[in-house]
Each structure stands twice: as structure tokens, then as C-alpha cells.
């Protein structure tokens, strides 16, 4: 069967290689996402926009996990920090400086990640880091829950979407579609930066550390410093995503720092495909689909999500991306690239 398929495509010049097939799919997906405001109602648009933000957030987490080999269970805390910075600034009426607000929020996330990483990363045990980051995020959540000027348990509601002023023109992001396209632009920029970082020399160094930490230090790589750098980058991406999220949701609550938010990127990455750059993005949209399809089934939703996760861990370790590529390679043998 498979050999006959190969024969039918013996005219190699016309046949697409596997990575070209994926590229076509990628472009198609990008076009659909960009055209979303024309295709759906505002409820679904909100869902897709949120998923885009969470996808960027998860790519940042995955940079830490799949490249540096460190699993943070508290990235929700950094997302939360970015969201609160943005919420406070917008409610104070600094909406024309929104881009600057995002930068400040990102830097805040980076700074907190630096402090945490500086202390925590000297330990190599994964469990230690997991518990420490989990408790720090929980500490933040409890503090926010009892901080009155940040709205205590109810959080900060009524965040207005901004009108961003550049020197020569103004960009009105008040409407849903306008802010949605702003999210798209943000996703393109952040994913671009993350792609560049993970495929460049820093990405190679981090992978070396993940593959063999001792060997890495014996080729002259400063393990601690590079891991810290990855931790800071990942934290900055999380806070940046949080800052863009606040005006989209128009409310921030301490629950942003909860365990659900922190474990989201883990689920996305695992479902989408571990050790793959695009895995978390694919996983985020797949999870959105599952969530949307099962939204009325209380309880069943968790059972399905949990079941899928177990299936990924026990059977399809490569997640959607890994399984898809394996499937393509089976259907179209001989079309892989050398």
C-alpha cells in the first residue's frame, strides 16, 4: 500500500515534502486566525483571542521546559503579575502609553523571575523547583486575595481597552476585533522572538545543558547562568502575555496565579508535542476545541481532559505534532527531507 503511494508520486519535483505540507497548513491556519473577526461571533472570537494569548504564554513556558529542561509549576504567578501591572496602569488612565505599559509589565516579570531563579536554580532537583514555584505562585495569590487596593478576592474589574497613541497617529483598540488584531500582532512578535531565541546559539547551549548538564559545564558553558537566562526569558514572556490579557478579559483576579493557570502550559505543551516549538500552540487550540465541545458537561470535561493527557503520556509521547509527523511520514514515505 505505502509503496504504491510512493510510486504514484514518483515525479518528485511536483510532490510536496513533508515540511512543505506542514508549511501550507501553517499558512492556512494563520490566515484563518487572522480572518476570525469575519468568521465568528464575539463569544467565539473572545475564546480564540484568549487561546492565542495563552499559546504565547505556553511557548514561553516550553522554552524553559523543552530547551532548558526546567519545569516551573508557578508560571501563572508571572502571568498574574503582568496582568495586574497592566490592569492598574489602564485603570489609572495611562491607556495612551499601553505599549510602554506592556514593556514595564514584561520587565517586572523578568525581574521577579530573576530573583526567584537566582535563588532556586542552584538546586537541580525537578521536584524541588516544582514545589517552590508552585508555592510562590500560591503565596502571590493569597497576598492578592487580601490586598484591598488591588480589589482583594474580586480582583480589578472594568479594565478599559486602550487607545494607543503613537507620535503621529492613534490606534483605537476599543472594539473587540481591533484588540483581537492587536493580539494577533503581539503573537507574531512574541512567537518570532521565541523562535529566534530557541533556534539560535542560546537555544543550542540550553539544549546541551538539558542533554547532559555535566558535559555542558565541561565544554565551558556556565550552566547556572544560562538556565537563569532561560528562566528570566520565560518569565518575561509570561508577564507580557498577562499584560496583553488584562484588557482583553477586562478583569483580573487572584485566580490568575492559581494552579489551573500554572498547569495550563504544561497541558498544552504535552498535548501539542513535547520538545517541539509549535507544540504548545497546537495544544492550546486543541484544548480550546475540547473545552468548547464539552463546555456543558460538568465533570465529564475533566475526565476527558485527564484521559487525553494520560493517553499522551502512556501511548503518544510525541503529542499531536509528533504523531502528526509520524503519520505523514507513514502515508508519504520517502518525502522527508535530508
Amino acid at each position: 500500500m505505502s509503496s504504491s503511494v510512493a510510486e504514484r508520486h514518483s515525479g518528485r519535483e511536483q510532490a510536496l515534502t513533508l515540511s512543505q505540507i506542514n508549511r501550507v497548513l501553517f499558512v492556512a491556519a494563520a490566515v484563518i486566525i487572522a480572518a476570525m473577526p469575519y468568521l465568528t461571533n464575539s463569544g467565539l472570537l473572545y475564546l480564540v483571542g484568549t487561546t492565542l494569548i495563552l499559546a504565547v504564554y505556553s511557548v514561553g513556558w516550553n522554552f524553559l521546559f523543552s530547551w532548558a529542561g526546567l519545569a516551573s509549576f508557578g508560571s501563572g504567578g508571572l502571568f498574574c503579575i503582568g496582568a495586574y501591572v497592566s490592569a492598574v496602569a489602564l485603570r489609572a488612565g495611562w491607556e495612551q502609553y499601553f505599549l510602554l505599559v506592556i514593556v514595564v509589565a514584561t520587565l517586572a516579570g523578568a525581574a521577579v523571575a530573576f530573583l526567584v531563579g537566582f535563588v532556586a536554580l542552584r538546586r537541580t532537583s525537578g521536584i524541588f523547583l516544582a514545589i517552590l514555584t508552585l508555592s510562590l505562585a500560591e503565596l502571590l495569590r493569597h497576598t492578592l486575595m487580601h490586598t484591598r487596593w488591588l480589589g482583594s478576592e474580586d480582583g480589578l474589574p472594568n479594565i478599559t481597552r486602550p487607545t494607543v497613541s503613537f507620535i503621529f497617529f492613534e490606534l483605537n483598540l476599543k472594539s473587540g476585533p481591533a484588540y483581537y488584531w492587536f493580539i494577533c500582532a503581539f503573537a507574531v512578535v512574541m512567537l518570532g522572538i521565541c523562535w529566534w531565541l530557541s533556534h539560535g546559539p542560546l537555544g543550542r547551549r540550553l539544549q546541551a545543558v538539558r542533554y547532559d548538564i555535566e558535559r555542558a559545564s565541561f565544554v565551558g558553558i556556565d550552566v547556572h547562568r544560562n538556565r537563569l537566562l532561560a528562566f528570566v526569558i520565560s518569565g518575561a514572556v509570561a508577564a507580557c502575555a498577562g499584560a496583553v490579557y488584562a484588557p482583553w478579559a477586562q478583569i483580573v483576579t487572584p485566580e490568575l496565579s492559581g494552579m489551573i493557570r500554572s498547569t495550563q502550559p504544561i497541558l498544552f505543551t504535552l498535548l501539542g508535542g513535547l520538545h517541539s516549538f509549535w507544540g504548545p500552540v497546537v495544544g492550546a487550540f486543541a484544548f480550546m476545541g475540547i473545552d468548547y465541545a464539552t463546555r456543558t458537561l460538568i465533570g465529564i470535561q475533566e475526565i476527558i481532559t485527564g484521559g487525553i493527557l494520560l493517553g499522551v503520556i502512556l501511548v503518544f509521547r510525541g503529542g499531536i505534532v509528533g504523531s502528526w509527523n509520524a503519520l505523514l511520514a507513514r502515508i508519504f514515505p520517502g518525502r522527508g527531507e535530508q
Partner: protein
Amino acid sequence: MSILELSGIEKSYGPIKVLHGINATVEEGEVFAIIGPNGAGKTTLFKVMTGESYANAGTVRFDGRDVTFEPPHLRTRAGVGRTFQVARVFNPLTAIGNVIVAIEARKKAQNRDDNPWWAVKPSASTREEALHLLEGVSLAGKANFAATDLSHGDRKRLELAITLAGRPRILMMDEPTAGMSPGDREQVSLLIERIMKPEAEGGLSADGRKLTVVMTEHDMSVIFGLASRILVMNQGELIALGTVDEIRNNPQVREVYLGTEDQTLEIVA
């Protein structure tokens, strides 16, 4: 000046003292072998020299500088290269990918990055150098193999290439022929002898000087073939240090290390 000086090295694991004050110096360009029966403390001494663990007392000087508590990545940058008993390479990477990571690490540490800051791929000169190193250890044909798929011996060669990519002045090898057949061992001896030479003479020592080699080894024929001086250890103490001939004729070594006299003569002869 000696390239490596050990003075009064002591090391304990918990209550057990493993090294009892070792003093030795390694001269530039020599092959310095450390031998001793199992449990003599060779590997521990090796770890203290490379920075894998730190001495409890005493100092390690490299090139006149105190490096006793310097972590491995700084010693590597200063010019100490090291291979492991069981070759340690970056398994999922290709052979050339392994060497590229090591070259990039060196260039970055020396601030000699020849790639523009925005570049994603390694620079042409880095790739060239990596290929050159792989050729030097006879692995050029397998440059695109994943390191996992290489044989035991090839992994040792690859590890050597990774180590040489750091342009070390001193090469520390922990049992370079462990687990090899006699034929392969001879190959490794020849390889070590060849790479030690400066590049101008067909070797892989990049800075124009002859590479210094420190090794632990069990195989006496490898030792006697390569070593210029030998340090003999027993139960955490240095019992002899000298040239191959001196060690051969040292009665204490015979007694403690090589066992009864009859056997000694057979092995040494």
C-alpha cells in the same frame, strides 16, 4: 613552570578519608599517568583536578593560578579539557552538532563570536572548524549521525573532538581505553599521540604548543607506551612518582601494586 601543581590534596567523603595529602606537578607537554589498584583514589584525585568536586584541603594550581575552588566551566575556559570514563556526549545531537556547541561555547567565553547577534545558524568558520576536528578523530564520515547511534569507540572519539574544541592546554582523560578490545586500545594510544602534537605537525593542539595529557588507566601496555611519568597511588596515598623506568624498578610499587615478584616481572617484561 609546571602547568599543573597539586599540593597537599586531601578529600573525604563523609567520615571516610579518600585522599591523604597528594603532592605532584605536571610539566607542560608530558603524558602524566595515574595508576593504582581499584579504590586507590585515582578517580577522586581526577575529580579534584578537573573541578568535578573540590578538595577539603590543599591547592590545585593551573598555569600558576589557584583553581582549587573554580567550577568546571571556568577551568574549561582556562584551558583544561576532560573526557569521562564512559564517553559523555550530547546524545540527541548529531556528531557535528556536538562539536558546534562546544566551539560556540568557547567562542562566546572568549568574546570572539564571529556570528552577528541576530544569526540563528552557526557561522561558516564554526562549521569548518567542527568538520576539521571530526576529521582529526576520523569521524568526518559520520558527521550527521546522531550521537546515540555511534558505537562505543566512536563516541569516545566524538568526546575527544568535543573536548579539543575548547582548545585545551591540558587534556585530562579518565581511562581512555576502558571497555575496549586490545586492537582498539592501540588505536586510541596512537590517536592520543597524534592529537597531542601542534597543528603544524599534523596534530590538533591549536595553540602551537604540545598538548599536556593527564590520564588514569588500567592497561599497562597503554601506560608504558604513552606515559612520560607515572604517579602510583594506593589507599589514597602517593607511593611513587617517576619516569616509566623508575616505576618499573621501584620495589614498593611492585610489592603494593603489582603483587608478588614473579608476576611483576612477567607483566613489566
